[in-house]
């Protein structure tokens, strides 16, 4: 059915700020309805006058009034559309913003399992369907419903028999339409599902075309595309047939009503119960009733779609982050240390459900730099994600500045703990916006200073418009390494106290990495840091070393001590002479 209640449950809060406009809109709609109903009455007056032989001078004012009313009606109708769109977009924009805000707060587990495309569909697709719902609902369904009601009332006033007959047929038709609607809705859902599959497929194809083309798999992918289309066509045909059924049903009502006018009109006119003008009036109202019924019918399917959208939006809003702060305590105003106490962790959503960290403990004193070593998959990146509270451990506790991460106000944590990952995401925006994440309170002077310190001046100068240059989306026309440098700048700008460099060097070649060394030195000055790297060279500046293997700490100690202990794993690694023994 039409999800009116669900709609208003979700939307009332968003409509409240627009109460004044909404009231005006309601008044306008009622006025337009009254004007529409008034005009046939004028024609009735005109016909009866003409039949009675009134002079043209008496009839012409009626004709002029008719034209004036018609014009006024349309003027108000346009005004009402304008208002409805204003309200609809303002309210749904707020909803979009709230949804985006909500989704950004959700945990990474949610984001890993939900593609950006799906989120676009929720936040823009579904919400736009709701905004259309607003204009459809208010203008078309409620407006036309009220018009229809007015027509029926006036028909009753004119002749209760005709009124009764038309009312019965109208109610009957609507019941039939609603039942048909129940049949058709699942068909529409099926079409929507296939459509989502198709555009999901296309999104992936556009995104992954480098791999597809290089694998010579275009024929294969086209066949998959064809298979989806093949499944889709019969569904679409059935959907259109459903539409024809709805159309026929409302058309049947129209013709039955015309027949009613013929039969009762002639009978009642014959006995003198109706004037000629009245019969014509009844005919006009019956004609007029056709349009609102058609429009309500056309909206029914869209409205149902909105129902599905509401469900999905509510589901998304109801989704809670797996990482709810238990407190919002602020970090102490002093250098921060990081502690892992018997931390155990696994990704709930990943294949195999393997334990990634198994009873991991270490303690980084404020201002110390810890080098984290381990093979791919040993859990290094997970440690970074736990420190930045992208995830929460299943066992044990991660502390920053002595507070458990789940007790810390998340904004405070973000301000003071920063991370550089190897995958740098860029926005199709200016270099400036990419560096500041659209924070326009950061001055260009500050940006240039940081860029200078990172020795990126040359790169900046090579851009066509300096900070105003637009980057392309994705890699942004930057190599992986250049993007990494940009990510460094992002972190520098924020001046955090705890820094996690998660495999920051993995895709830099050693020469560029060396270039970054000094920059990293600056960054680590007076900061607590976790350095995750494949190369031993990268951890040369570490005070302490943690070596992970299969999620367990196999060695943990001061770097100098481990270096001089010939039995340590670390010194064995150094002794192999390879820069990259562990990777």
């Amino acid at each position, binding site marked *: 059915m039409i999800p009116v209640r669900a709609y208003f449950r979700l939307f009332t809060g968003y409509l409240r700020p627009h109460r004044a406009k909404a009231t005006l809109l309601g008044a306008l709609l009622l006025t337009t309805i009254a004007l529409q109903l008034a005009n046939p009455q004028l024609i009735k007056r005109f016909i009866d006058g003409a039949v009675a032989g009134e002079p043209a001078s008496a009839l012409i004012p009626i004709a002029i009034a008719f034209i004036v009313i018609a014009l006024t009606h349309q003027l108000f109708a346009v005004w009402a559309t304008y208002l409805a*769109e204003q309200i609809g977009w303002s309210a749904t924009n707020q909803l979009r913003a709230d949804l985006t*805000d909500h989704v950004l707060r959700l945990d990474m587990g949610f984001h890993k399992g939900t593609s950006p*495309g799906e989120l676009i569909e929720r936040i823009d697709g579904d919400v736009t369907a709701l905004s259309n719902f607003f204009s459809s609902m208010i203008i078309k369904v409620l407006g036309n419903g009220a018009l229809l009601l007015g027509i029926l009332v006036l028909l009753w006033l004119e002749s209760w028999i005709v009124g009764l007959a038309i009312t019965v047929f109208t109610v009957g038709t609507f019941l039939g339409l609603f039942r048909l609607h129940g049949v058709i809705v699942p068909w529409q859902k099926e079409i929507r599902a296939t459509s989502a599959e198709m555009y999901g497929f296309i999104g992936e194809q556009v995104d992954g075309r480098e791999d597809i083309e290089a694998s010579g798999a275009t024929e294969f992918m086209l066949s998959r595309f064809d298979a989806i289309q093949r499944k889709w066509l019969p569904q679409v045909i059935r959907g259109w047939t459903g539409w024809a059924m709805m159309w026929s049903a409302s058309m049947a009502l129209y013709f039955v009503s015309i027949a009613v006018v013929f039969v009762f009109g002639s009978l009642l006119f014959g006995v003198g119960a109706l004037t000629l003008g009245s019969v014509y009036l009844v005919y006009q109202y019956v004609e007029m009733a056709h349009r609102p019924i058609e429009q309500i019918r056309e909206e029914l399917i869209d409205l149902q779609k909105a129902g599905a959208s509401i469900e999905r939006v509510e589901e998304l809003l109801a989704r809670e982050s797996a990482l709810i702060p238990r407190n919002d305590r602020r970090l102490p105003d002093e250098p921060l240390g990081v502690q892992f106490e018997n931390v155990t962790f696994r990704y709930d959503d990943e294949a195999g459900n393997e334990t990634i960290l198994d009873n991991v403990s270490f303690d980084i004193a404020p201002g110390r730099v810890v080098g984290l070593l381990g093979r791919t998959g040993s859990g290094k990146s997970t440690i970074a994600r736990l420190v930045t509270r992208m995830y929460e451990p299943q066992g044990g506790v991660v502390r920053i500045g002595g507070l458990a991460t789940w007790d810390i106000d998340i904004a405070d944590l973000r301000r003071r703990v920063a991370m550089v990952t190897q995958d740098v995401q860029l926005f199709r925006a200016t270099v400036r916006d990419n560096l500041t994440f659209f924070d326009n309170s950061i001055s260009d002077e500050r940006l240039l200073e940081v860029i200078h310190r990172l020795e990126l001046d040359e790169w900046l100068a090579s851009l066509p418009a300096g900070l105003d240059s637009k980057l392309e989306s994705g890699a942004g026309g930057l190599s992986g390494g250049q993007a990494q440098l940009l990510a460094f700048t992002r972190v520098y700008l924020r001046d955090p106290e705890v820094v996690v460099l998660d495999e920051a060097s993995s895709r830099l070649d050693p020469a560029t990495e060396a270039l970054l060394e000094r920059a990293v030195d600056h960054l680590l000055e007076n900061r607590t840091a976790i350095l995750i790297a494949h190369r031993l060279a990268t951890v040369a500046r570490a005070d302490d070393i943690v070596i992970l293997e299969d999620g367990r700490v196999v060695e943990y100690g001061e770097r100098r001590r481990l270096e001089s202990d010939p039995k340590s794993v670390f010194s064995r690694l150094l002794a192999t002479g390879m820069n990259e023994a562990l990777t």
Partner: protein
Amino acid sequence: MTDQPTPAFTRVLFRMIRQQPVRYGFALFLWVTIWTIPILIGLITAHFFDALTDEIPVTTLTMLVGAVLVYAVVRSMFIFMAMRNHASLLFRAAATMRRNLLVRIYELPGAAGLRETPGENVSRFRDDVEHIVEPFDLFVDFVGALVSGLIAFGIMLTIDPVITSVVAIPVLIVAIVSNRTGGLVRRYRKQARDATEAITGFLGETFAATQAVKVAGAEAHMLRHFQDLNDVRKTMMVRDRTLTAVLEAVFRNTVNIGTGLILLLAAGRLAATGAAGISLGEFALFVFLLHLVTDSAYFYGMFIARVKQGSVSVERLTSTMSGEPWERLVDRTELGLDTEPTGLTREVEKPGPFESLSIRDLSYHYPGSTNGIDGVDLDIALGEFVVLTGRIGSGKTTLLRAILGLLPAEGGTIEWNGEPVDDPATWLIPPRVAYTSQVPRLFSMSLEDNLVLGAKLSDDELAESIHIATMRHDIELMPDGLETLVGPRGVRLSGGQVQRSAAARMFTRAPQLLVLDDVSSALDVETEQTLWRRLFEARSDVAALVVSHRHSALARADRVVVMEKGRVVAVGTAEQLAETSEAFQAIWEGVVGGG
């Protein structure tokens, strides 16, 4: 590539019609009928009102009512036929465009940036295709409305030429208004759509970067930017919709103005007897027919508006097809709607033996930048293991992509076994060459489909590929083994698993030359070494071109090619280069050297 010019939309329309002449002809017949037969109802009604002034005989009344009901049944049947035919007609038109676009996107160099974000591209497949189909759809209504409008106009003329001529004025105004406002409609619509694209593009990028946004604590700034974009769209949308409402008001009102004019002109003559008089039936018929005439003008307006909108979309899609003429968008393609798709599995062809690949003077630069590669020479022969190394931004990835045609080279030659390769994008693919990018992608389907991609393979061949790629253990861990659904809608794989899957995918194609971009971010040294060892054990007829700066790879290489600023600066074995090349020493030792 420059975009081809966009044609007048009528040319597009007629070309689309020519692809499905029978279906479209049938649609025209059905819709013209559906549009014109209501005139009968007008005539029946007129008859009723004229009969009403006297006592109506029961037989006449029965006939009138019967005519109405028969008419209803007939029209209903036509509507059913028309809808089913239309569904198929429109679906095929849209499907053709979607397929042609997809084929074209596959033809474009895979690593050259498309002009739009992925979100925008999906919207082109969905919304722009729909905007082109709309006028194609509406054209039958337009023709139907035109025919019925002309007939109606003819009947009105026979009733009263004077009133008809006067009433025609507002109808003409409608036609002119709808013609004139087309440009405005088009501009507003385009602005509204651009604003929407900006929003979907931004959302897509934001959610692709959620972790970065979170770590940066930048949610509030992102949100503010999003709200700014939303505000822009609101303005555009309200303007667009209001204009539509104004136009609709103009169209809808014409009947009322016309009716008012009839009343004005007929005052004193209505219900009067004699030649000058207008009967009530004639009046009713007049008003009824006026509806049809106005509808005709209205549909003309609608059609024009949709045509304008459709031209915008043709322009955009022509731009997406980058350099191809618009005809390719709508021309018939094998849609496979009536036959089982054939490309889902196919034999892997066996090419002649590989001898050598040689690259001469290859150049490519990113649009609007001096970054790229310049005059690169490179040779690789059967059995060789060639490692490409260099600092970041030195052009290694760019070189691989330019060789494989994933970026359009600006100059230079590529020879395969001494024969020039004209189109590397379609020649240097499996089973000759297989390539794994730095960040390979998997698609939403089973892992097996991802590995095999339609190649007809024996179980042994598949198992062998999985073995070489060192991913047997991974598959054992997966819930449904090879049948596990991966990609965004399936099980999430770790970076290493994705990289190993991509490697296995490469081996299922039994390539002669393997091209691998840096795998070090996802594979550890040991895995990488195992992979090379197994590969060269299993196959004696391969060569490999690999980007790496790992010592293990460099030491193993038959030849190391060192790149700097888009040029090859040194070639040799690691041993030789360690003596002679400063750039190589810098990479080997991980310190800032000559560059």
